[in-house]
């Protein structure tokens, strides 16, 4: 299949407008391969025809969503998107903690939305434990929520395979995981006790209204599965439960700029972050 740059850019712009996900030009092969799969499935022979279909005739947005599902591989593992976690650990967490020290605060609350089987929530628990020198002084709560009871049950067990922990630094692997048998990794209480898993539907307007005082919201690679209006409502809900100065993290290719103007954009070490 041919994907002339002109059409790659058109498709990229369309994806950005509708989802906030942005693909750099060096992702042309990545996009091309997945596009080819969708075009074959839908019987499209020409890229121009396919883009026209997405723009003008895909009334319920089903084909667009299929394409997005294919482009955003739904996989989860510990320490995924490491650069962003590094930014959280080394800059944002530090900023929030310092502000709390000045005002005598002693709690840190993190919301992990769309937590799936718990890898991200436990990753955050490990990071917080590692980064806070005076960890004992703090009351830390990582609330991890998902709509799927099955994944939450697995998350609560905290048992993973070697693929899930492939990016965990060896020292942390030793400190925070038991290995009862080869290829099985069980999260230790030191990290596990910081995380509370709860069943929530992000689309339920009343579900999160009683939540407040969060310093961080992680909602990475989740909003892409919502339509434009719902995405905005969810982000507004996050805003309402966050402390002023709190940070929200979306997936590395996702952007809030087309979703909400309520958050401030800040540049920290070449990264853009959103802050309440």
């Amino acid at each position, binding site marked *: 299949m041919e994907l002339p740059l002109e059409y790659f850019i058109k498709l990229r712009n369309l994806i950005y407008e509708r989802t906030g996900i942005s693909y750099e*030009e060096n992702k042309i092969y990545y996009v091309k391969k997945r596009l080819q799969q969708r075009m074959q499935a839908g019987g499209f022979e020409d890229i121009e025809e396919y883009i026209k279909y997405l723009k003008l005739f895909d009334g319920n947005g089903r084909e667009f969503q299929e394409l997005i599902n294919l482009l955003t591989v739904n996989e989860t593992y510990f320490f995924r998107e490491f650069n962003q976690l590094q930014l959280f650990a080394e800059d944002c967490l530090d900023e929030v903690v310092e502000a709390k020290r000045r005002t005598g605060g002693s709690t840190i609350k993190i919301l992990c939305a769309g937590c799936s089987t718990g890898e991200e929530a436990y990753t955050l628990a490990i990071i917080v434990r590692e980064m806070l020198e005076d960890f004992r002084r703090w009351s830390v709560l990582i609330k991890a929520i998902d709509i799927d009871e099955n994944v939450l049950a697995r998350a609560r067990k905290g048992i993973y395979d070697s693929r899930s922990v492939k990016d965990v630094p060896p020292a942390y692997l030793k400190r925070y995981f038991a290995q009862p048998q080869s290829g099985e990794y069980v999260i230790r209480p030191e990290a596990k006790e910081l995380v509370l898993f709860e069943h929530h539907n992000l689309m339920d307007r009343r579900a999160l209204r009683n939540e407040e005082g969060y310093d961080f919201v992680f909602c990475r690679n989740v909003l892409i599965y919502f339509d434009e209006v719902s995405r905005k409502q969810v982000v507004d809900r996050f805003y309402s439960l966050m402390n002023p100065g709190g940070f929200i993290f979306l997936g590395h290719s996702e952007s809030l700029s087309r979703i909400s103007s309520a958050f401030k954009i800040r540049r920290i070490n070449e990264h853009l972050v959103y802050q309440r």
Partner: protein
Amino acid sequence: MSLIEDLIADLSSEDEKTRAFAAEDIACDGLWEGVGPMIARLEIEPSRYVREVIVSSLKMMSGPELVNQLIPCLRSDDAFVRNSIIDILALQGEESLEALRGPLQDADKDTRKFALDVLVQIGSSAAALIAEAMADPDINNVITAVEYLGRLEDDRWIKEINNLFLRSDNVLLRCTCLETMALIGDENSVECVNKRYPSYQSISFLEQYSFLKFVARKGSDIHLPLIISLMGEKGQVMHKEIINAIEGILKRIPRDYLLPELIEVISNYLESEIKDINKYELLVLLGKYRNPEIYTILTKYLEPRKPLICMGAIEGLGEYGNPEAIALIEAIKGVVRDEEQREIIERSLIRLEKLR
């Protein structure tokens, strides 16, 4: 107080969360009496967050009552309010069409423009109303109407657009016509363009970009000499448009061999400072033609330290089909680790192996 009275009162609460939740509840529970107060609150609400919630809440509602209450806000001085109202009205779809006839006749040209902004988002069913604005007394609204008809790819008014292009003295309108004719033009559009621009010199600087866009979609070999001239003169600033124009013509009119002058200018382009992604597409393009010198050009760019250019050369060599390239590509394969790039290499090798 009743529930709705409570919620309306909450819209003026001192607590921003209470105001936001009230707006959300009014919309979710379909309490129509709250729509007016919500819209009124939007105009004075100081919190960005609450404004966002009011807008998303209004987006959940639908019906003529909502449309009629929103229309007057197209005249709001507040850009956030106006843009939000445009989005909400657009979400109402055909429900908004009749109500927008009024703003399209408004004495204020900006209000007419905002009505057009709603219509284009509604889509094809709004095209006839958009087309009426080609007779708007304000030239900017005419330009907008032409642009939006192109965006909707609705060619029912192409005759009018061709005429506007031919008779207009306004260069911006001509540019817009060119870009719209690129999308929905007919044979007559090509004739109009050739008539208006008999030579390269007759295209003003401002029109060159739009002209190239037109040629990319509708041009033919007669436009190639003109593009080659532009490459020499404007190649570095308009490289993207020029490449698109060449690709477009070659795609529409298949051939085995490129004009030698074209190979020469493409070759110069590859040596210039244009972006790697543009070099990538030129290399892929070259691979489709049989001129002997193309093989040498492609092999020259097999340089793994510049992955995009290298992959362009590999894809190009795969297309070109000279099995002598196998050894060269195998050597690259040995140093490339990226999965996607390795796939491209494999594909080219499979292709070339079949020809061995």
